[in-house]
């Protein structure tokens, strides 16, 4: 079961001996259990699954990945036209689907 969504911790409190928190997901807030992330701070991001925080999102790693994605995005924008080794023009969006369509 994998649906884990990143959210920002906006509040922490204890309830019946468990560390709980309120997590914000793009404007929607829900209570979650933060017992497995005892060191998480308010303002940090966590991945929430089934009402539990399972990891503290590493924002440095996230940033690095996003920078890489941005570079990829720029490369895509530049390479609007590409040519394969048979000399056929191949556009970036062509994959198996495009080949089936006879592009």
């Amino acid at each position, binding site marked *: *079961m994998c*649906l884990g969504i990143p959210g920002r911790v906006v509040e922490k409190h204890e309830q019946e001996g468990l560390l709980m928190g309120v997590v914000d997901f793009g404007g929607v807030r829900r209570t979650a259990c933060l017992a497995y992330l005892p060191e998480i701070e308010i303002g940090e991001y966590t991945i929430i*699954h089934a009402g539990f925080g399972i990891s503290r*999102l590493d924002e440095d790693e996230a940033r690095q990945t996003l920078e890489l994605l941005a570079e990829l995005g720029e490369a895509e924008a530049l390479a609007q036209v590409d040519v394969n080794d048979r000399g056929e023009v191949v556009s970036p969006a062509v*994959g198996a689907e495009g080949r089936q369509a006879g592009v």
Partner: protein
Amino acid sequence: MKYLEEFRDPKAVRELAVRIAAKATRPWVLMEICGGQTHTIVKQGLDRLLPESVEFVHGPGCPVCVTPLEQIDRAIAIARRPEVTFCSFGDMLRVPGSDTDLLEVKSAGGDVRIVYSPLDALALAQKRPDRQVVFFAVGFETTAPANAMAVAQAKRLGVENFSVLVSHVLVPPAILTLLASPTNRVQAFLAAGHVCTVMGYTEYEPIAAKYHVPIVVTGFEPTDILEGVLAAVTQLEEGRAEVENAYARSVTRQGNQPAQSLIREVFQVTDRKWRGLGSIPSSGLSLSEAYRDFDAELRFDVLDVRAEEPAACRAGEVLMGTLRPNACEAFGTLCTPEHPLGAPMVSSEGACAAYYRYGRTAPGGTAP
């Protein structure tokens, strides 16, 4: 939404597909074992963006799909009892048992409820001491920490009217079973990012080494999945077979230690039957001795349940990746989401349901 939507950037997705196409000089077969990843791949058509040389085979990554028929029948038997309030994740309600499903039990008057978290079920038990509240604890390792905490809390607070019906499964034994099969074609795996968030990825290192298969820990958004594929294809092209982490924003090699610690305390490893695959040794979790009082199977005496699968259902082959859903004779005819024969057609992560829903109804995987 921050840290989610940026990983769907369509330009980056297309460029990654281009790079994968450039990297793959020969055909390769990859498998993901995670329902969430299957869902994204089929829904976003990522497999169609890839070159023909890179083939995706969908593995048994949907815990709803692999929950054994006997366990579904047990759940139904327990849910029917008048004193029971049966709580479950939404996906489980439509999974067919031998002759009915939990949704039908609900419509016949059973107190069956959808919850988002096992702590919600525990809270319900505290609020209603007159009811026996049972939670259907299904899932891979990702959900085990949540279920462990609910049981541990129940014991700590003395909530005696709470119990769990456990059907947890573990990923590494499934990979070993797949690799040991003589019909296996899979050459590299994408490991489930949230399973590894909890467990880390040290368990995969001996597997990669022994079978010489790259295993790339991968996330769930379109760019995450294609990055995982690119990493896997690169390793295959270079003849390497390592465990690589392509989801480092959430996964560390050691994983979440407090979670693992509580899992070890509340659960023990057991042999488990996987629906469609048969019994895999040491592939599941059950409650440990100290927490056995909270085991719904014992509390409600439903151990003797016989289960029969419909003969036409080939879920096992689909789950092993040896049969494409739309190549099954029953697909779209006898077996549809309205009248499913097996679990992969019911669960939103099941490969059969994903194919059906997103239009892969013709053989060969093309939309009509």
